[in-house]
């Protein structure tokens, strides 16, 4: 994805990443985590803002830092990094709100042709997984490296 993206830091297993969003609201640290689920090899991807004061993570805050495309590009690059070492992993993601999920869908849609070169991409609709298609309102997404 040839978009500008932020520099990533991670712990050595590459399951927790951090980067700094920079924009009109200042520097906002963001954390990305690939969490294990009840199924081995199936990971939940989530990211959110890290409070500078408390270190607590909030995935519902809308930071409005004017860099959402760069943030999404950075999260995608973390997915590449994670699945580069866990190449059989399924990575599941959904937004914390409907509008956030829609934002993710728009992000995937925008770069779908490129993403599909490297990943199988599925969307969840009416309780079933389908091959991701543009213009369909999915509630969650899952990707797997080809």
């Amino acid at each position: 994805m040839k978009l500008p993206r932020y520099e990533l830091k991670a712990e050595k297993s590459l399951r927790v990443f951090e980067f700094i969003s920079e924009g009109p609201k200042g520097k906002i640290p963001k954390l990305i985590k690939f969490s294990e689920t009840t199924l081995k090899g199936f990971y939940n991807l989530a990211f959110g803002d890290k409070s500078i004061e408390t270190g607590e993570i909030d995935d519902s805050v809308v930071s409005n830092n004017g860099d959402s495309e760069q943030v999404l590009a950075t999260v995608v690059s973390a997915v590449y990094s994670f699945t580069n070492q866990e190449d059989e992993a399924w990575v599941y993601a959904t937004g914390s709100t409907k509008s956030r999920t829609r934002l993710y869908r728009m992000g995937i849609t925008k770069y779908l042709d490129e993403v599909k070169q490297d990943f199988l991409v599925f969307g969840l609709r009416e309780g079933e997984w389908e091959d991701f298609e543009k213009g369909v309102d999915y509630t969650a997404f899952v990707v797997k490296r080809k």
Partner: protein
Amino acid sequence: MKTIKDLNEKKIPIVRIDNSLEKYKTVPIFQEKVDKANEVLKTVGLPKLTTK
């Protein structure tokens, strides 16, 4: 010598290791979303992989 632009165009990013992030591996952050993912696994399962 590679420029920042060259590096940015690589799909797999250069990642700096920061051991201070280790603590988040065991802290149950985003637990609500993990619970939802587990619920989807339980009710829907995995996508079917077809060979073309």
